[in-house]
């Protein structure tokens, strides 16, 4: 295992790519993803990877290139954020339904407008129906670890789906943290050789990719995606177990923190999960029986795992870093779905927060806990906005 590095989230992902050495990377720059493609460009210019690195003329083309390359038989990675993800939105669904196991890093940034380069989750929340697996990392270490695990998950024969690994823009992409790395050889062995299925470049076994499917077949083909998604949780657990062996770091799909004996729990994704643990510790010191939950795998949503944690709690709040104007947050919806069936379901409220990079203060999260403990709070609440 290498020496720990002081490195930011973007550079950590570029480093993971370097170790994975993908066949093709096609991308378009956008803040706060740029450090990834820039750092990776340095590896390319210095011949440290074999990758064919393509600067596309737009994100729509970047994703189209990735799909073409993946169908052709290459291992493919890319990265984007915000407007970039928005511009390739059409192609996201196509990548997933063509079953191209592309791995894409997302530096979460809010969607315009107003235009703003900072973090919220509106970009990836908007892609939650696209059929991509979504993993969220809390910090630089997880940015790196998720990237490496993502290739194994995406390429698993039961899955064969593209994977997004998301980290909070600036908060993680541009922050220097301590990173424990794996040796190059360990990464190489962990991900293994890429085996394409019926690649286009297999001239001897010509394959037709992307025909039109009319009502007589469409649903059957689409349903395969539901089945593939159905196997992601189990595959991811396997991959995480293997990863623990080589890294010593053991991850779960959903991670409860001091939840066993907690009465009140707050659920979040991304960097806020860390701040939440800090707050839980502070409040525990003061005797409050609180806990927190971090969602690492957001698509497919690990309903059972979450329900097992939330069962019997007195009150739960869900933090959504994105607004769906006219209804509650996306994470909130999935939490409600997860507990709808269980007998001892808690009451759950929703907090929209941190839009456009509005910083999250520990005091505010304490406030959320306090509202949950008091049984106050509307069904949908807005945290930290000057109303």
């Amino acid at each position, binding site marked *: 295992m290498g020496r720990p590095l002081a490195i930011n989230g973007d550079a950590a992902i570029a480093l993971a790519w370097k170790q994975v050495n993908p066949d093709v990377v096609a991308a378009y720059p956008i803040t706060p993803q740029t450090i990834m493609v820039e750092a990776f460009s340095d590896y390319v210019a210095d011949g440290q990877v074999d990758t*064919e690195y393509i600067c*596309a003329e737009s994100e729509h083309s970047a994703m189209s290139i990735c*799909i073409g390359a993946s169908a*052709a038989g290459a291992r493919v990675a890319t990265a984007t954020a915000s407007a970039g993800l928005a511009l390739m939105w059409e*192609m996201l669904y196509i990548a997933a339904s063509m079953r191209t196991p592309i791995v894409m890093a997302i530096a979460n940034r809010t969607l315009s407008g107003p235009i703003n380069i900072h973090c919220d989750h509106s970009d990836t929340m908007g892609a939650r129906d696209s059929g991509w697996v979504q993993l969220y990392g809390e910090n630089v270490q997880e940015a790196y670890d998720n990237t490496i695990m993502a290739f194994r998950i995406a390429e698993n024969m039961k899955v064969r789906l593209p994977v997004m690994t998301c980290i909070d823009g600036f908060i993680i992409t541009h922050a220097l943290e301590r990173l424990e790395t794996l040796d190059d050889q360990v990464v190489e062995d962990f991900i293994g050789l890429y085996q394409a299925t019926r690649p286009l470049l297999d001239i001897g076994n*010509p394959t037709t990719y*992307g025909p*039109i499917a009319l009502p007589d077949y469409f649903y059957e083909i689409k349903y395969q995606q539901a089945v593939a998604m159905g196997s992601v949780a189990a595959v991811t657990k396997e991959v995480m177990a293997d990863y623990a062996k080589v890294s010593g770091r053991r991850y779960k799909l959903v991670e409860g923190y001091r939840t066993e004996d907690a009465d009140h729990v707050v659920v979040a994704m991304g960097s806020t999960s860390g701040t939440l643990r800090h707050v839980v510790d502070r409040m525990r010191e003061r005797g409050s029986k609180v806990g927190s939950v971090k969602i690492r795998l957001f698509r497919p949503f690990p309903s059972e795992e979450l329900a097992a944690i939330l069962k019997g709690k007195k009150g739960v709040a869900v933090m959504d870093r994105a607004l769906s104007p006219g209804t509650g947050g996306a994470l909130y919806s999935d939490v409600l779905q997860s507990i709808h069936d269980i007998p001892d379901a808690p009451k759950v409220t929703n907090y929209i927060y941190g839009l456009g990079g509005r910083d999250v203060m520990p005091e505010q999260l304490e406030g959320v806990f306090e509202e949950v403990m008091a049984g106050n709070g509307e069904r949908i609440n807005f945290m930290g906005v000057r109303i």
Partner: protein
Amino acid sequence: MATDKPVVVATATGCFEVATTIYPFSSWEVPWIHTAFENAPATISGVESAYKVLRRKGLLDQEIKFVAFGGDGATYDIGLQSLSGAIERGHDFLYVCLNNEAYMNTGIQRSGATERGASTTTCPAGTCIPGKREFPKDLTKIIIAHDPPYAAQASPHNWKDLVTKSGKGFDIQGPAFINVISPCPRGWRHDGSLTIAIAKLAVETCVWPLYEFENGTWRLTGESLRIAEGSREKKPVLEWMRSQGRFRHLLNGEHTALVEEIQQSVDANWERLVKLCRL
């Protein structure tokens, strides 16, 4: 196919794609991919890039050629940028535009390739507006302005010329482009059996000159060369318009000025082209 090497094909959404692959049937006996409407150049860029790296890594030893097809909508309008980007990056592929001068797959809507005065479902000839008001984009010239190693205009009626040009497009290293006029009976409103005859008329009237641009040099070919040399007559555009229902409304005597304007524009473009070929 004008190459004896194995070929991988990408196709944009459009008539050609829908007509050849309706699940679970496929007419393609070579590897083929369709992903969307506006991105065949990007898709083939990805395939070609995979090829380059797999060759470099020694995982593939066959030489393969790459070709992408798109209609005029896919090429002149919604996919222009994708094509421009792929050419700028210098991928090694042949792009063929099947130009039937409208969005046929969706029912004959106007495209950037639709000719001035033509009636389509989104620029219909009405009591106030006589068909399309704008002149078409000259896409071949736009592509040539990218300075690719090879670009050409062709027509199916002169298939030898078309095959020669395709051969060059395949052989040359780097991006090549061929724009093929593709008459469409339903969209242009002519009898289906006249398809080839009408393509020929496009060339004979200089509405669609045959030429190529190879490593910086312009050259007329086929009937167009003979017209420029004077060994063949240049027919009036009116003949072209008369052959198709989409121009019918222009022929009732009310629009002679417009017809004249169109003839002038065809003449001016033709003269410019002849000059470029003499440079």
